[in-house]
């Protein structure tokens, strides 16, 4: 297990470095530059390039960037918030995205489990069909459509929730964006829970448990759900990263000062450092979570855990 973890960590590190290099090359391929504004003449552009070291060969820029990054310096923004260190921008924005994303994961996972359980236990009834319909809608309708619908109905018409994010009232104003973001998670979890539960309920050990006289909630939660959860975690993990890093469009709709909206603005204005830093952080989070999942997998699944012990 230790050897495995170390190997996985090293692979992750190399993957991250490769991602960084690819990002650098992609930035070079992006049309225009942060400074090709109509109002700037050649001399001004040259001095801006010199100021930020963008006139150096890409290899030098790459190693300088990696070097600075190891010291925790992600560089400064060139355009969307001129000369502001990116770490300073992330300090306030990352928590907002993580909060809203975490909230969405929570809502999605809880509702998805409930929906999936109902569908599996009331298999082939009207409840099952209803749950399936809800899941299909949740998977197929993009989150920004939910965002607009919720914003119009609960925000504009009913005025129960604010239509825009408000830092003074962050919980209340996070509800609509979190629900919009949670729909896909909810639907995915519901579908997996249903199919996994059906499979588990059909298995021999469930028959054994039942014949031993275990019944009701204990049978469902302790014996069935626990086993059904294992594959669900692999599905949930990448969803968590997606949500934590914020849906780009949903953040824009609700005017959320998170990292998603920052990335969109940065790409549109060729703000190299911001795009690279954010994409890199996304990748790092993704790889990190996948690593955690692999380790968690061993803990949850007794078959893996016991097998390792036996090694």
């Amino acid at each position: 297990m230790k050897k495995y973890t170390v190997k996985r960590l090293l692979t992750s590190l190399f993957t991250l470095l490769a991602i960084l290099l690819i990002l650098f090359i992609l930035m070079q391929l992006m049309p225009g530059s942060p400074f090709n504004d109509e109002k700037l003449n050649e001399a001004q552009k040259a001095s801006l390039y010199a100021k930020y070291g963008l006139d150096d060969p890409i290899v030098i820029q790459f190693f300088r960037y990696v070097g600075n990054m190891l010291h925790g310096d992600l560089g400064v923004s060139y355009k969307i918030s001129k000369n502001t260190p990116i770490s300073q921008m992330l300090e306030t924005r990352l928590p907002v995205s993580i909060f809203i994303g975490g909230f969405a994961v929570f809502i999605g996972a809880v509702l998805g489990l409930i929906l999936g359980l109902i569908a599996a236990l009331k298999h082939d009834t009207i409840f099952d069909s209803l749950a399936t319909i809800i899941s299909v809608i949740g998977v197929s309708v993009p989150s920004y459509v939910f965002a607009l619908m919720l914003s119009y109905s609960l925000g504009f018409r009913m005025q129960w929730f604010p239509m825009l994010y408000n830092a003074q009232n962050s919980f209340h104003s996070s509800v609509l964006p979190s629900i919009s973001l949670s729909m896909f998670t909810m639907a995915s979890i519901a579908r997996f829970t249903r199919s996994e539960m059906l499979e588990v309920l059909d298995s021999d050990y469930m028959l054994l448990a039942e014949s031993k006289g275990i019944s009701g909630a204990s049978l469902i939660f302790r014996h069935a759900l626990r086993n059904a959860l294992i594959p669900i975690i692999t599905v949930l993990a990448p969803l968590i990263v997606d949500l934590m890093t914020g849906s780009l469009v949903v953040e824009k709709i609700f005017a959320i000062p998170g990292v998603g909206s920052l990335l969109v603005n940065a790409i549109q204005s060729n703000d190299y450092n911001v795009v690279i830093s954010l994409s890199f952080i996304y990748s790092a989070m993704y790889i990190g979570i996948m690593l955690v999942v692999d380790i968690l997998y061993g803990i949850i699944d007794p078959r893996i855990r016991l097998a390792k012990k036996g090694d």
Partner: protein
Amino acid sequence: MRKTKAAVSLLTVSALVLGLTSFNTTVFAETGTSDLNIMLETPVESLDPQQATDGTSFEVIADYTDGLMQMDADGQAVPAIAESYDLSEDGLTYTLHLRDASWSNGDPVTAADFVYAWQRAVDPEIASEYSYMLSDIGQVVNAAEIIAGEKDKSELGVTAVDDKTLEVQLNVPVSYFLSLMYLPTFYPVNQAFYESVGDTFGTSPETVLSNGAFTLDTYEPAATAFHLTKNEDYWDADRIQLPGLNYQVIQDSQQALMSYQTGALDTTLVNGEQVDQVKDDPEFQTIGAGYLWYVSPNIDAVPELANLNIRLAMTHAINREAITDDVLKDGSIPTYTAVPMQFAAGPDGSDFSEDQTKYSDVCAYDADKAAELWAAGLEELGISELTLDMIVDADDAPQKVAQVLKEQWETTLPGLTVNLTIEPKKQRVQDMQDGNFEAALTRWGPDYADPMTYLGMWITGNSNNYGLWSNADYDAIIAECTTGDLCTNAEGRWARLYDAEKIVMDDAVIFPLYTQANAEMLSSKVTGIEFHPVALNRVYKNAAKTE
């Protein structure tokens, strides 16, 4: 036991879910009692007056900073920190007398603050994008040399004679010099404060100083919401009626309009598609934005476009009314002059481009005339058909306008095929700068309130003269009006600028289309917001809001 545990957790979850959906509090009344709630389309790019270049940043910086002069409701320069000024007889030296005003940390605003800021603006290390405001436009002594790295910034032609007297030396008389002073590039910076905060300058309320009508309370880089409160120590505080300004950045236009309709915003922008929905509302209005949209033909690179008849045919074939009335619907005005309307007033106070009929014979919509010129042009070139490529920004409005242009041209001018290349704005600008285009749909916003901000572009070798058109007579007139004899003769200069504009129009150097307007909603409770097409788009000093 386990059963109850499971039941309890299920109950908690459902309670939570229900709780979430049944929240009911009033969320729209939480802003200050009569703060003005303002919508922004884009976040602030920089609160550093010498680094900022965009309209949003300028507007916010001006909320809490006063320069030497400010704009009155008509866009004329009136005193701000400079109480009065003297201009030398040769028009080359301004002596400005500063009033008693203080920064929000208690320091007095001194002439040295202006000297420090202006030196920053031309400092090659700072690389301010608006440095040309001091050199090419403002003609401050040595500005160009300092920007080019040939002289030290201490040699800039601006000196603090004493704490309250600022002297500015110009290379040539600049008739619109005072109107440049309300541009944030010329705003003061307190050197001691700047040095105490260093690189963090302008990134939080603690790292900016105010000497203006409001002070910044909440702000973070690229904030989506921030707030300013009335500055009780402002030199003109008695005039300020609003207790504060509450800014909200909304990039989704539907959310913005709905927020306005619930009363969470007092003013918001409306896009072309929403106009039909709100145009009968008395709170709907359109405001001139000064931007001229035009087609730039690449006269140098495309031999067919070097033919004058072809160019004249193309501009005569454009039905500009159809574009503004049927496509844009946002109050944009069809334009038949090379200088757009409503931003530059002459010596007698009238709009430079008020008369839109003076070049009718070379650009008015006339399908028959266009077809005739077209036939003549094709014959001169010895061709029967022509395919042109036009580059267009990937934004909504330009794409629609380009589509209509293509239709109008192809219908009126037989044998013409126009292909549209839609690309991100950054790419379009790059292509134009590289000369890599045949025709382009583009726009230009005025930098200062003088026709020269447009006419100066068409001189030989100007970096924005993408079509590489060149005319010695034209260059001579522009030189005469910028650095020559006419600098001190306002009426004479004005007349010569018309001569220059006529050359541009007669030669169809560009095909002007329309002067952009912004469609907005403005609450009837609000009065006194001043809208300007130049430098500061919105000024709130005289605004008031009733409950």
